[in-house]
């Protein structure tokens, strides 16, 4: 029995949430649906940890779906690049569910709760599938699963604008997915295979054709939409801003990271760094866009009046940092980018959880709602300050570790590196402006009548928020685990290229 489970862990990772999502919907009862989802999330987390341990002990793991050997069948492949992403996804799955029992109760009308939880589980299943699969077409399938369910999640938002936001995201997301499909179609046409490892072997002989170049362009642009890389970021702020709090927490922490994962996976594993950064001028394009993203995102965040929008625009800027790391294409740069993907997920998760706590109390998260929160909701604000310090990149928080490695990586690149460092530092300054503005409001402005009698958020909401806050601090104090994971991920990516 146990050995059967262990042999099929990669399949279980995706099947668990996928299978239980419809059951969750059939349960109908709010409490039962939540409990089922939560149990599934714990199992998923356990599976991801087991996979992570297995991979770090014994190296990459290949699993033939349904007994069909790759490259004919679908291969699930767990290596040191995607194993930590599985852990991150299932961790956020647990944390968000712990948060969502109370939060969803307040934000979504009663009969739809079961629907919310099953859509949420489908979304998680899709994201896990994207990360774990070793088959290019399978990526597209799971991308569609996760996207369709996240449109549903966003449209649950109470604000009517959630519907337009979801619709916009739907259009943009579909274009992105279609581009990815076109790209995959092109390379399938040239090589006759869909397995990533097999593609990597066969592509070099047809590298110099227009078809492969077009495929590469389509995949990069398509995934840039899903990553929300400037100037294709416009769908993101409204989607995160108007979604129900629980959905924004999960999507903000994971969904763009997974898309960036796909981008990195295709660039390094399928096409190879030599093609992407040698033959194609990917580096200058991405660097320019990413640096612009840092400035545009941060400046826009400063002027927002809704905290969720502030955080969403800050995400646009932070995605810029990740893409900078990726675009440097060196071992140091790639590990810095991957490291920041984890760290940012933790910090942004923490901050969106705080926004959710405030939303729970006041049914909105405008900056006025933060007035006097330092006194009325000290624990909530405490978590916000920790997460905010992380975004700024103060020492002893996760953000500092990212900044440190990113600057170290940029130092290897001469003059361009100096420009990048300047951009990173300027981005931190702008982060001070948008984070500390909120802190000032919370601690020094007197609340009006509505907010004067605000109470601390319920304990059950504070637990996940503080869990993420403490995780931010933990990574800041002892980053060895995350840094180690990011470095071996980068090594496996660069090592697998010819």
């Amino acid at each position: 029995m146990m050995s059967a489970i262990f042999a099929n862990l990669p399949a279980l990772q995706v099947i668990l949430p996928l299978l239980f999502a419809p059951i969750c919907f059939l349960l109908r009862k709010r409490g039962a649906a939540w409990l089922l989802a939560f149990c599934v999330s714990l199992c998923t987390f356990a599976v991801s940890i087991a996979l992570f341990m297995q991979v770090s002990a014994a190296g990459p793991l290949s699993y033939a779906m349904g007994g069909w050997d790759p490259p004919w069948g679908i291969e699930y492949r767990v290596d040191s690049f995607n194993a930590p992403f599985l852990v991150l996804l299932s961790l956020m799955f647990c944390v968000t569910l712990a948060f969502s029992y109370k939060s969803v109760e307040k934000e979504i009308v009663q009969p739809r709760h079961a629907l919310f939880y099953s859509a949420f589980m489908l979304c998680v299943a899709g994201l896990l599938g994207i990360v774990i699969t070793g088959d290019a077409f399978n990526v597209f399938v799971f991308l569609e699963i996760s996207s369709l369910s996240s449109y549903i999640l966003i449209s649950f938002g109470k604000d009517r604008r959630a519907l337009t936001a979801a619709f916009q995201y739907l259009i943009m997301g579909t274009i992105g997915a279609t581009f990815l499909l076109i790209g995959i179609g092109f390379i399938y046409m040239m090589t006759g295979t869909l397995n990533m490892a097999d593609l990597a072997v066969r592509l070099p002989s047809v590298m110099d054709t227009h078809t492969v170049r077009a495929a590469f362009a389509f995949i990069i642009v398509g995934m840039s939409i899903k990553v929300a890389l400037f100037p294709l970021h416009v769908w993101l702020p409204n989607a995160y801003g108007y979604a129900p709090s629980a959905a924004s927490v999960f999507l903000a922490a994971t969904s763009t990271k997974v898309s960036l994962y796909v981008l990195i996976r295709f660039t390094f594993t399928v096409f190879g760094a030599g093609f992407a950064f040698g033959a194609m001028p990917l580096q200058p394009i991405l660097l320019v866009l990413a640096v612009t993203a840092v400035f545009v995102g941060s400046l826009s965040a400063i002027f927002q009046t809704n905290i969720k929008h502030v955080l969403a625009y800050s995400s646009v800027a932070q995605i810029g940092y990740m893409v900078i790391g990726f675009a440097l294409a060196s071992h140091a740069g790639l590990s810095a980018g991957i490291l920041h993907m984890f760290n940012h997920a933790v910090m942004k998760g923490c901050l969106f959880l705080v926004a959710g706590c405030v939303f729970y109390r006041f049914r909105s998260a405008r900056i006025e709602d933060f007035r006097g929160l330092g006194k009325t909701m000290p624990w909530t604000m405490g978590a916000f300050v920790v997460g905010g310090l992380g975004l700024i990149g103060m020492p002893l928080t996760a953000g500092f570790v990212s900044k440190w490695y990113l600057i170290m990586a940029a130092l290897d690149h001469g003059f361009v590196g100096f420009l990048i460092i300047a951009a990173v530092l300027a981005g931190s300054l702008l982060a001070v402006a948008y984070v500390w503005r909120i802190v000032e409001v919370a601690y020094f402005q007197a609340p009006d009548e509505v907010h004067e009698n605000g109470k601390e958020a319920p304990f059950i909401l504070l637990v996940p928020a503080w869990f993420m806050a403490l995780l931010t601090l933990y990574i800041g104090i002892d980053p060895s685990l995350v840094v180690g994971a990011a470095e071996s991920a980068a090594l496996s990516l660069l090592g697998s290229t010819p």
Partner: protein
Amino acid sequence: MTDLSLLTLPFMPFFIAALAVMFIASSSVRSALMLAVPIASGFLLLQEQSGVALTMPFMGYELVPFRTDKLSFLFGYLFCIASFIAILFSLHVKDRVQHTAGLFYAGSAVGAVFAGDLLSLFFFWEVMTVSSVFLIWARQTDGAFRCGMRYLIIQVASGLLLLAGALMILHSTGSLAFNEIGLESQAGYVILLAFGIKAAFPLLHNWVIDSYPQSTVTGAVFLCCFTTKVAVYALARGYAGADILIYIGAVMVIFPIFYAVIENDLRRVLSYSMISKVGFMVCGIGIGTELAINGAVATAFNHVIYKSLLFMSMGSVLHMTGRIRASDLGGLYKSMPLTTILCVIGAASISAVPLFGGFVSKGMILTAALDQKLDFVWLCLLFASAGTFYYAGIKICYFTFFGQDSGLRAADPPKHMLLAMGLAAAMCVFIGLYPALLFGLLPFEVDYIVYDTTHVLAQLQLLAFVGLGFVWLKISKLGPPDLRSVNLDVDWIYRKFLPESIRCALGLLIADYGRLKRFFCDLFHQYIMGGLIRHHGPHGILARAWPIGSMVLWVAVLLFFYLIFYYF
């Protein structure tokens, strides 16, 4: 003590108490705890010996969060004393956020001077920044908020420069140790700029003038003690003997004097005076001889004591009367006799009257300048000493406590405030009378005789003539009038001068000046200021929801460019 652990480091009592204070509702328990903190920290310091270091692995590097030598000990003791005085002075404050911020601020200053590597230094540097801004915001005015934001941005910029410089050093040498840095590499200049912002180098000094007068009565006392002194410590450790500092110091010493003489807000006068005094220290560090370094460090020690005394007495006046402009005050000696006496002691000390603390240290830097044949620098310093006596020694006391009677009859401040001031005043006198105690703490052996005939006579002459000058200016009414006014500083260059001069230059070239002027005004207001808000504001083009059509257009444009780039 042989076994060093993180918990017994001298900054720890501050950090622990800072968190604890948040949760203590009873004000007497809180006061007792806060007063115990600097004492506990000082006690921990007494246990340590010189030359020990605590190492800690972090991100694959050996960090040294604690290492001791004479230089850091001196600043450590100084900050313990200063924070005790500042805490005592602020006991009446009910706002717990301010207490927490003050303790974090003082604690990180103590931590910074024992940091043995650049990363630890950066950590304390940032904690100082983030905590001190609360002392400005705590005044809760709109001006204080915006000023705090400016202060925060400038200070964080300094921290980021320090980080960038540290990484550059790490990248080129592989070590993060914080010792002599020097100016051989680019990294040296980047870090010098970082320190320079904190030390209020000329043109980088605006934040002092901007923020200190805006902070709360008690916050100003904390602020005047730590930030610039940590920068002086860092300069002394990293850049001792760097020639450029001599000239930076000389400029720093001179230019604030003119502002201080005409300034009306008395806490701003003190802020300008602080820059001038820090200039003395920078100059001493630049000269770099043993005597000069000793002088710089001793000046820092004295300066913290007498400057906090002056900020406390001006704070008391502001606290009791609600006014701080020289033109609104006067004749307060009748109702505030104790404050008057204490303020005069502080003024005597800052003016380096013999038998007071300031006299002991000032002469050391002057003598060192003469020893190195830096006559011009010596003249600058001498001129500045005269200026100091004029604006700090005479002006402050005269306009507040004597002078034209304003009719204000405020009483002396509460006991704990008087006690704090009394403590500082006692130290001023004590150091003046027994300089040996301070000399024992200095980093190098001292063979400098404080009270020899030349020093005393020269200083007395200087003081006497400045005093005469003041009287003459008063009688002849030639002195700058004490008006309600706003003085322009270097920010005028970028706020006013550059735009104006561009406008004038263009106006000369092009005859139709009126239209052009309107055009440039529009350009500035609409396109630069308005442009930021228009593009990034909640309804700005970069921040609002685009119609789907234009988003898709962007996708097409981007794909087009990718294809172009890839094909050709």
